[in-house]
């Protein structure tokens, strides 16, 4: 009789035990849940979340000039400036050869200054140091320039909330042939069937 009684309460007891365990473990889970701040609320008052670190931005070094090409006036001082549009055959053939930057409509002196070859020239006539070439690019590519200034076009390295270095247009695009060059891809992943 007694044995029967035990047997009859065994199953309900087992169920109660399981329920209790689940209850306890759920409670535990509750307590270790991370406190993710309410994102929407946080975004609403996000003006106060601006990083306290001061964002500092630096330009990376522009790519070097070809050997012995700068300062340009070392040679150009000896030549009278010729403003007529033509294809260069005696000098800078490498550039004439690759030139592919709206080549139908443009040539050297649309960006380089006629009189002082050590400077670039904006459409307004203002002379521009080679270090600020992005301003020249921005004359035509305004939308890209706008995105680049906020770090969305182009590349930045460093700290996401602090000191960062930004790449100039000319670090990635050859100004005379700006289309991005094709790259050799890294090897593909090993196929599942080839894994030993």
């Amino acid at each position, binding site marked *: 009789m007694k044995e029967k009684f035990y047997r009859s309460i065994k199953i309900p007891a087992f169920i109660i035990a399981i329920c209790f365990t689940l209850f306890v473990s759920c409670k535990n*889970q509750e307590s270790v849940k991370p406190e993710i701040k309410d994102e929407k609320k946080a975004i609403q008052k996000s003006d106060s979340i*601006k990083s306290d670190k001061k964002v500092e931005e630096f330009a990376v070094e522009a790519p070097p000039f070809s050997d012995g090409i700068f300062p340009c006036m070392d040679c150009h001082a000896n030549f009278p400036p010729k403003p007529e549009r033509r294809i260069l055959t005696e000098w800078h053939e490498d550039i004439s050869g690759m030139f592919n930057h709206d080549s139908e409509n443009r040539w050297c002196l649309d960006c380089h200054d006629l009189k002082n070859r050590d400077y670039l020239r904006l459409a307004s006539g203002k002379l521009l140091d080679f270090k600020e070439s992005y301003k020249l690019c921005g004359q035509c590519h305004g939308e890209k320039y706008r995105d680049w200034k906020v770090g969305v076009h182009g*590349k930045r390295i460093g700290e996401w909330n602090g000191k960062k270095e930004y790449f100039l247009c000319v670090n990635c695009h050859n100004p005379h042939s700006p289309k991005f060059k094709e790259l050799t891809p890294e090897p593909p992943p090993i196929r599942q069937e080839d894994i030993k």
Partner: protein
Amino acid sequence: MKKGNSRRSFIKNVSLATVSTIALSGCGSKAFEDFLQQNFRTLTKKEKDEIVKNLELKYKEQYGKEFHVSDEGAIDGTLFGYALDLSRCVGCRKCVYACVKENNQSRDPQIHWIEVLQIEKEKGIDFADSNVQYNPEKVPEKGYFYVPVQCQQCRHPQCTTVCPVKATWQEPDGIVVVDYNWCIGCRYCMAACPYGARHFNWGEPTVPAEEINTEMHYLGNRPRKKGVVEKCTFCIQRVRKGKYPACVEICPVGARKFGNLLDPESEVRYILENKRVLVLKQELNTQPKFYYFFGI
């Protein structure tokens, strides 16, 4: 009946005792300590620091180098977000290997946290017809676009809800992490992840000592062991120190953007507000913090 029972229980007890003695004598006290370690989230700062220190010693012994293992928590007021410019990615896979190196992924058997899918432009984002094995001389190939996929750091991560032991969870800064000491290797999370972003160590992972990255985080790139799951952590060891993830820094076309979603002046916020943005498998309501956008 009673007699039979006692013999059975005697044999059971003896064999249990033998097994446990063998098990205990087989491993040193360190391994035993490891075995008794609690879930990372329930540990106090002091306990964490001690565990981290022990790990540094262990790795030094193993690899013969100085290691720095961090247990740094989330920075207040940060929610990390990522944006990837589909109009720029050329499929060069530089991010894949930069990630392997930074995060000490196993070289053999190979584990990649990032997979780059090549998809025909005509088909649009169609995973069924995508190809990760593409290997032409030069990329990008005409008529194709590229979609790198890694952990999408969902706001509603399914992988964490299915974990039977709570070995994986979302940190306050939004990064979904795994405690490799607590993971039992059941791979439920891999089944739950709709992006194939979790990877299992089927074999003992190998990382050459000369290539190992010694800057580590407990929840990130420290060496894993056989039988645990791992995934992208937005380079937790870098981003919690303010640095960009390794994939952002290597990308030769500048397609990868990273920042704090709570900071209105961050690059990712600018993208969300000004560009055309999409997330993968939006219909699943996982709410990724990894956005794809068109920069052009």
